């Protein structure tokens, strides 16, 4: 059985019932049925032919005996008749031979030694005519293992009687069996070649293109669109292969588009100076831009999978106090807050935006952190300067007065 795995994308799925095996099995069964009936027909024909040959042979033997015994019959030489029949029954396959006179009385009979042994309990090898006649009657009653032929004994224009011979079917049966054995061997060889030929035809024209398609599908699953499936003729499978290649090209173009869009988005995502992360509803970072890595002094890829509050602070197990993410998680609304991270010695203006999918609805949070440390510092200095200016103004007024 052919066992083909369909690649990593389909796990352990394997071809359990190969189409080729099933097809071969069907061919074999069909050949078996066709062979059975053709063999039966040929066997029966051969059997009839061999039985006719045997009948002809029996008639030849009968004719020979008839020509030998006519003079004995004319001379009423029963002892010589018996001797002639005895010699005749030495012939291979002759079960018995008998002479029936013109008045239909059996006047001589001889049963072959093998039949005598098979049918008589007597130990002696010589048997009286009476026993021979009884055995003859017994044998003629059951004609399943021999054919019984009568040949007339003619002398001049006179009918003297007839010769009865029983010729064993063994000769015919053996001939038929030998023929059948040869026929079976020849048929088996022909069937084997035929089945092999049909299988290879099927393999080349159907299975091979299907396996090519399977390989093509595996390549597509692996993202390899550069190697189209080899076209196999102009039949239905050829059409299917063509359609598959067209689909492969379309998918390649679509993925190129997606890849391009994604690239554009990633470029945009990384072009922003603000720290931007995409988080799930547990505040686990799914994506982080270059600015985030730069800010946290890490590769953005290292941030993936980590909790937001664990990235911006050390060993913290909960969201930062005042984090707009928490609010956003609750109400799926935009929230903003300024949060100071003492460990980073920075103050961030944090905005949390819910992300919606057209089909799945709310799927996460876009978390944008803008470093406003300098702005806050300038604001503080400005406020300090204003304060000093006010004090100076106040002090000048006092001095003047």
């Amino acid at each position, binding site marked *: 059985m052919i066992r083909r795995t369909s690649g990593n994308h389909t796990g352990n799925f394997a071809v359990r019932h190969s189409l080729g095996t099933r097809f071969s099995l069907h061919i074999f069964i069909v050949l078996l049925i066709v062979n059975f009936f053709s063999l039966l027909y040929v066997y029966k024909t051969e059997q009839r032919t061999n039985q006719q040959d045997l009948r002809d042979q029996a008639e030849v033997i009968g004719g020979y005996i008839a020509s030998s015994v006519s003079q004995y019959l004319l*001379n009423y*030489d*029963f*002892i*010589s008749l018996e*001797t002639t029949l005895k010699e005749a029954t030495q012939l291979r396959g002759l079960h018995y031979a008998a002479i029936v006179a013109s008045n239909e*009385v059996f006047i001589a009979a001889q049963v072959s030694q093998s039949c005598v042994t098979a049918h008589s309990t007597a130990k002696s090898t010589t048997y*009286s005519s009476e026993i021979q006649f009884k055995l003859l009657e017994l044998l003629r009653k059951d004609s399943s293992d021999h054919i019984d032929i009568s040949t007339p004994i003619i002398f001049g224009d006179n009918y003297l009687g007839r010769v009865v011979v029983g010729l064993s079917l063994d000769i015919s049966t053996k001939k038929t069996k030998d023929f059948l054995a040869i026929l079976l061997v020849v048929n088996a060889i022909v069937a084997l070649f035929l089945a092999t030929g049909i299988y290879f035809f099927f393999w080349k024209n159907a299975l091979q293109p299907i396996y090519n398609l399977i390989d093509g599908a595996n390549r597509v699953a692996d993202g390899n669109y550069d190697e189209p499936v080899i076209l196999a003729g102009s039949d239905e499978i050829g059409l299917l292969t063509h359609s598959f290649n067209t689909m492969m090209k379309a998918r390649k173009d679509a993925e190129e588009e997606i890849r391009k869009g994604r690239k554009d988005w990633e470029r945009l995502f990384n072009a922003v100076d603000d720290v931007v992360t995409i988080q799930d509803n547990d505040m686990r970072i799914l994506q982080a831009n270059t600015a985030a890595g730069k800010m946290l002094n890490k590769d953005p890829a290292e941030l993936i999978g980590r909790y937001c509050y664990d990235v911006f602070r050390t060993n913290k197990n909960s969201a930062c106090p005042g984090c707009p993410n928490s609010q956003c998680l609750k109400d799926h609304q935009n929230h903003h807050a300024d949060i100071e991270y003492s460990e980073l010695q920075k103050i961030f203006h944090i905005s949390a935006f819910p992300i919606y999918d057209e089909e799945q609805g709310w799927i996460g949070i876009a978390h944008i952190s803008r470093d406003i440390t300098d702005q806050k510092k300038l604001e503080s200095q400005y406020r300090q300067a204003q304060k000093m200016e006010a004090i100076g103004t106040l002090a000048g007024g006092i001095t003047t007065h």
Partner: protein
Amino acid sequence: MKSFYDAIIVFIILFSLTPTGASASESSLILGIFPRRNAEQTYIMFSPLADHLSSELGIKVSLDISNNFETFWQKLSTGRFDLIHCNQYHYLAARKNYNFEVIGTNAEFGKTTIAGTLIVRKDSGFNSLSDLKGKKILFGGGTDAMQSYILATDLLRQAGLTTGDYKEAFAITPQNAVIGLYYKQADAAGTGDLALNMTTIKNRIDISQLKFLAVSEQLPQLPWAVSESLAPEIRRQIRRILTSMDQSEEGLTALKAASLEGITPAYDKDFDPFRKIIQEIKGQEF
């Protein structure tokens, strides 16, 4: 054509190898046996007797078997045989025409005589010879067969049946006539009274289904005769050897093989009753 030439060559070889008779040379003798049984069986049965005779006589004795009565008679008439075992008719004819001299007769089945018989099947419903009128009678051996035809025909004549009152058919041997009757190929069989005792018959058919319809008077058994062309001393020796076979172990073995109990000394006058019957049936004077 080739087979024809082959047959001629075989015939010439066989003829050249076979002695033409002791009258020309008494270094070998030919014993002719009449076809009472089939040729193969006859050869097996009488070979030991020929060997015994040969051994005792000091002269090679060859067996000559004939397939039928006609062949036997042809060989006899050409002077082929020095010693014959035949039926009573053949002896009388050989005596008259070829100077054969009887030396003994068979003793078998406890008897030194035989009779001609007519046998029928028990289920035939025949109880007397007159029932055979218009029926088919199978005689064994032909018209020269003493017991099977001549004596059996004499019985029919005594019962008032003449030629044409029944249909004659001839089996090649008397045993075949009995077998033919058993297998319903005839209504009656003419044969000897000892036929049913023969193993050839008993091994083949159920003799209990047959019965004797008529039996002739008991007459001398089948004869053994020598050609008077042989030297008197040899004839005397042959007579002595054959009639004393039952007195030696070797002789008894040969007799047993031939299904005989002995060969009883016999003389030509013992066959006078046959001469009378043959004259009546066949019109021949012996």
